[in-house]
Structure formats: C-alpha cells, structure tokens
C-alpha cells in the first residue's frame, strides 16, 4: 500500500515539475543562439499596428534581437495592467510612463537615459515630464496637442472665418453665429463635449490649471494646492459649451462625440487632440485634409490663445534587466527616433508629431498636427498639467464634481471648493 501511495505522490510531484519546467523551456527557446529578447509594454492602442511594423523592421535589421510587444489600453485600465506586470515579476524591458507620478513610482527600476542619443536630440523641455532631481528617466514618445477641434467647413458655411477667432469674445460670437443657423447647416448642435469621459474633462481642465502652475511640469507635480486661479474663465467656457452642447452631455462618450457626431458633420466643435486624426482618416480620408482645424483657448488674457501641447508619454527602460537586454533596449529606442528608417516611420507611418530634433516640419503629414507642432515651437503650447495631478484625482474627484456642476447638482463655488479639497487630500 505504501508503495502505491508513494508512486502516486511521485507522479503528482513530477507532473507539477513538468508543468513548471515546460514554461521555462519556452523562454529558453526564445532566447536561443545569443538572441536578446526585449519585452515592450505598449499603452498606445491606436498605433499598435505601426509599432509592430516598426519592430519587424528593426528585427530584420538586427537578427540577434527579438522584440515582444504587449499592448494594453483602450477600454482597459493600462496603468493597472503595468503594475500587475511588475507585481507578478514579469517586468517589461521597455514600458511607457504617463508622467512624473509614474516615473517616481517606478524610479528604482528606471535607467538614467541622459547619455542616449534619443535623449540628446529631444526638443528642449520635452524631457521634463520624466525628470526627477535633474536626471531624465524617459524618452518622449511623441508630441500631442489638444484644444477645440473644429470642422472648418461648418464654420465657413456659417460665415465665420476660423482664422479670425483671436479673442474669447470672438470665439463666443462664432459659437452664437453657428448656433443661430443650426437648421440651415443641418447640424445637431455646436459642441459635442463628451463629459462622460474622465480624461476629456481632465484634459480640458489643464488649460486652466497649467498657468496656475507657472506652466512648469515640476511645479505642477509638486503642487499640493489647486486654487482655480483661472476658475472664472473656466466657468465661462463650461457654461458656454454646456448651453450649446449635444445633450444629454453626461452620457456623451468619446465614440459618439468623435466618430459619430463630429466625423459626420453633425457638430462643429469638440474638445480633443491630434490623436483623433487616424480614426477620422479611417472614416473619411478627406475630412482631416479639408475640414479639420484647431482653435486655441483664451485663458490668461482675452486675446492670447494657447493650446496644450507636449509629450504625454515617455519610454522608460528597465535597468534591472540583464545588461545586454538594457543595451539592446537603448539601441532600439535610439534607432526608433534617430535613424532614417525610424524617423521616416515615426512621421509617415505612426503619423506622430515628433518630440525630437532633426525632423522637417513639412514632413508632418496632416495640417492639424503641423499646427500643433508650430504652436509648440512658437511658445504657445502649455504643459499637460493633467498628467501631474495626484493619482486617481481626475477620475475620482474632478470628473464627479464636474458632472455634478453640469447636472445642476451644485454651484461652481462648491465645485471649486470640493475639487481643491480633494486635490490637497490626494496629493
């Protein structure tokens, strides 16, 4: 009897061992023949295909390197997934950082990138969003900018020249002019601000919080107070779009706002950034070329229009990996942003606005992206202050309080008070 028992136990144990060794076998075959495996954790879902394409290109040039891309994002909670990767010990070699808070959180894993080619060629100031105590820890992915995205065709049909909007008052007039001709223009409403999406609200708030933080990423990150210095102007803008918005504003989501209403000429203005270009292109090639424009917000003064433009994501390299993996990761990122092939793909395939020098602005394929790039170069870009808010602030405090204001559940003063209070508590 005992023998039988022993045998069955033995089988059980050997099965377990077989299972676990099976997994490690897979890993071994992947790194066979001195091949270096780089794991990339990607959050930009929109450009997954382009990234895979770029990786393939790189792999064909460098046969000793194999790159695995994991993409999480879109509807999924990407930062949680990244954290889960770290907690489970499957740390990626290269991953995306969303700002200083991420940089600080993963700082013990992050490599100092200051000697990398792609860090040296980065446009001045673009490294700030991943710099702690003067040491840069991330390579900017690209430049993204946002403001009021408009349908120029509707503006022109209504007799408004988008270029003539040079002050807050002229913006209000333009909105009212378009609203008065809603029926003739065949549009649903002037605005389609999607107040259901926490990130849209958060980005919108950035126009008004960035100047309060001296337009400085480090200041924004260290700030433990949010006083709504430009709250009055923010209220004016909010009241304006709420009045002329597609209703119900509180359940208006991204896809209805952008892909349904805006892309089908049903609304004239949305609050979005240049990342909507690829999805607009996939619906109607001519839209971006002929109709899409960007209008700035007038915050600090009535006649100085600015948009938010800057890098929002940074590539971080995991220094805890084997030395050769780290080396190859650095080479890969340098290649991506400084080699001719890489540059070409970044501009023409990814359709990114480059965060690096050595690109010709004329190469940027669509007019709006070029406009964003010019705003940035002309000093009319603000920082992505929203990326430096405390963890969870925009979805757990800002969005609900903002929706309460839109839904007439509280006054603007209460909104400012509650949000300021949460900001300090959550910092």
């Amino acid at each position, binding site marked *: *009897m005992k023998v039988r*028992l022993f045998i*069955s*136990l033995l089988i*059980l144990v050997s099965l377990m061992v077989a299972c676990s060794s099976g997994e490690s076998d897979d890993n071994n075959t992947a790194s066979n023949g001195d091949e270096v495996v780089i794991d990339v954790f990607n959050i930009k879902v929109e450009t997954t295909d382009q990234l895979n394409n770029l990786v393939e290109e790189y792999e064909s040039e460098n046969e000793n390197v194999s790159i695995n891309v994991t993409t999480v994002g879109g509807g999924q*909670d990407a*930062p*949680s997934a990244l*954290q889960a990767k*770290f*907690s489970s010990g499957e740390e990626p070699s290269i991953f995306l950082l969303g700002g200083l808070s991420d940089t600080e*959180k993963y700082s013990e894993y992050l490599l100092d990138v200051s000697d990398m080619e792609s860090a040296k060629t980065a446009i001045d100031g673009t490294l700030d969003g991943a710099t702690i105590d003067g040491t840069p820890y991330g390579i900017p992915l690209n430049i993204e900018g946002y403001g009021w995205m408009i349908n120029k065709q509707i503006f022109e049909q209504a007799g408004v020249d988008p270029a003539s909007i040079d002050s807050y008052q002229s913006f209000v007039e333009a909105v009212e002019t378009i609203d008065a001709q809603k029926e003739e223009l065949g549009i649903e409403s002037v605005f389609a601000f999607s107040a*259901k999406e926490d990130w849209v609200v958060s980005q919108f708030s950035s126009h008004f919080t960035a100047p309060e933080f001296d337009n400085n990423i480090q200041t924004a990150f260290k700030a433990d107070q949010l006083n709504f210095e430009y709250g009055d102007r923010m209220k004016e803008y909010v009241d304006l779009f709420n009045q002329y918005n597609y*209703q*119900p*504003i*509180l*359940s208006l*989501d991204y896809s*209805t706002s952008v892909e349904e209403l805006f892309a089908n000429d049903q609304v004239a203005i949305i609050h979005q950034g240049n990342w909507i270009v690829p999805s607009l292109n996939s619906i109607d090639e001519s839209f971006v070329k002929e109709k899409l424009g960007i209008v700035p917000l007038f915050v600090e003064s009535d006649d100085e229009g600015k948009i938010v433009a800057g890098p929002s994501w940074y590539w971080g390299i995991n220094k805890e990996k084997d030395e050769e993996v780290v080396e190859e990761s650095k080479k890969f990122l340098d290649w991506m942003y400084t080699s001719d092939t890489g540059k070409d793909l970044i501009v023409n395939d990814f359709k990114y606005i480059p965060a690096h020098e050595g690109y010709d602005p004329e190469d940027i394929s669509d007019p709006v992206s070029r406009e964003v790039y010019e705003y940035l170069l002309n000093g009319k870009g603000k920082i992505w202050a929203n990326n430096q808010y405390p*963890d*969870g602030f925009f*979805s*757990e405090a800002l*969005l*609900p*309080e*903002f*929706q*309460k204001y839109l*839904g007439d*559940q509280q006054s603007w003063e209460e909104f400012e008070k509650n949000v300021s209070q949460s900001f300090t508590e*959550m910092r």
Partner: protein
Amino acid sequence: MNFKSRTYWLFLLPTLLALLLVLIIPFFQGVYYSFTEYNGFQVTGFVGLDNYIKLFSDEQFLYSLGFTGAFSLASVIGINVIGLAFALLVTQKLGKASTFFRTVYFMPNLIGGIILGFIWQFVFLKAFTGISEVTGLEFFRGWLADTETGFWGLVILFVWQMSGYIMVIYISFLNNVPQELLEAATIDGANKWQSFWKVKFPLIIPAFTVSLFLTLSNAFKVYDQNMALTGGGPFGSTEMTTMNIYDTAFKVQEMGYAQSKAIVFLIVITLISVIQLYFTRKKETEL
C-alpha cells in the same frame, strides 16, 4: 482505516492546496494589508485601525454601499419574480416550444458581463434615443445620463442576465412536485391559481433559499456590468461598492485603504447572506 483516511486526504490535497494558495493565504494577507499603508509595491507604514476609522467618514463609500443595497433589493425581487414566471411558463405542456424557450431565456447568462454592459449601453443610448425621436416619448430620452435611469438601467441589465439562470433552478424544483398531489388538489376542486399557491408554492420554498442566496450575493458583487454600462457615472452616483474598492486600489493607489473597504464589504455580505439563509430555511416545508 488508516489507508482510507490517507487516500481521503490525498485526493483532497490538490483542492486544499489550490484553496490555500488562492483564497486563504491572500485573505489573511489582505487582512494584514488593511492595517497598513500600502501602495501595491511596498508597505509604507502600519496604521492600525486608521483605515477603518477613515472609512466611516468616506461619503462616497457609504453612498456606494447604500446604492449597492438598493440595487440588490430591486434586482433580487426582479430576478426571482421573472425567473419563477419563466419557469412556470416553460413547465406548461408546450411540447418542442418549451425547450426552445428554455434555451432562449437561459442564453443571456452565457454572455459575459462586459459585453452585456456594452450591448445594453447601445440599447439605452442609441435604440432608446431612436425610439424617442420616432415616437416623441420623453420616457426614452436621456437614459444613463442621470442617477435614476442609471440605476434602473443596471437593474434591467442584471435581471435580464440572471433570470434565465434562476429559472433553471425553479424548473428543477417545479418538476419535483409530485403529480399525485396536484391531481388530488384538482379533484378537491382547486383551480390553477389555488393549486399553485397552496400546493406548488410551499413545496418550492427550498428553491427560494438557493435562488435568493445566489441572486443576493451576485447582486452585491456586480462589477463588470457596472463598469461597462455606466462606469459609475454620472458624478459617481451609480458607483457600486466593488467599483469603489477597485478604484481606490488601482486608481488612487491606496491598496491598504481599499483592502479595509473590501473587508467591511465582506462582513456586510456575509451578514446579509446568513440572515437570509436563516429566515428562508425556517419557511421550508417537508413533505
């Protein structure tokens, strides 16, 4: 005997191990974390009962508990009434149609919560708006844009998903009601209505014990449907407790605090389930 008990434990071992690894150990770890400040990476301090004290002044958490309670009440009633109605319908002599209806009613249960959430989001936002444009009925306008429609939207979704499953339980109990009792009742002059309430109903009380338990605990634990349908909005007013806990843990990054919420939530569910079991057990009739 020696051998018997040894094989007994041997066969139990894999399950015990699995339970230990994925349930019991994490549970005690969780209890420990609830007394600490923990960001998911490292424990930064032991705070004793602070998390628990903070929790009772956290308005959003208390609100979400209340909302979850109201949601559970509405959906438990809805699911059981509709589930029982379905069961009665398909146990009538309908021939082939009976199998067809059973399958159809059960089907929503096979779809995952996230997908269901998106399907119903489409129904509420697009189809309802369409209906209201065609008919001009205000009732179909602006669903999910305020707390009330958000609440009923969730209840409708969950009732739709769970009713078919609960129906199956009721069917099995209804089929077990002895035919001779029903015949005897008919001979005594009972009509359909009377024979249902006086004969069938008392005999299927055990089904209520099971169904109420299942629906109650499932309703309290709803997360994916909530996330996909309303995402807690507008202004966090349709946020259920599970979502509140998840957001505290992964968005605000306060794992320790979230853990203490989870433990309070566990205690609440356990208490409610035990009370419910106690009362429905008392009502069960033996033949």
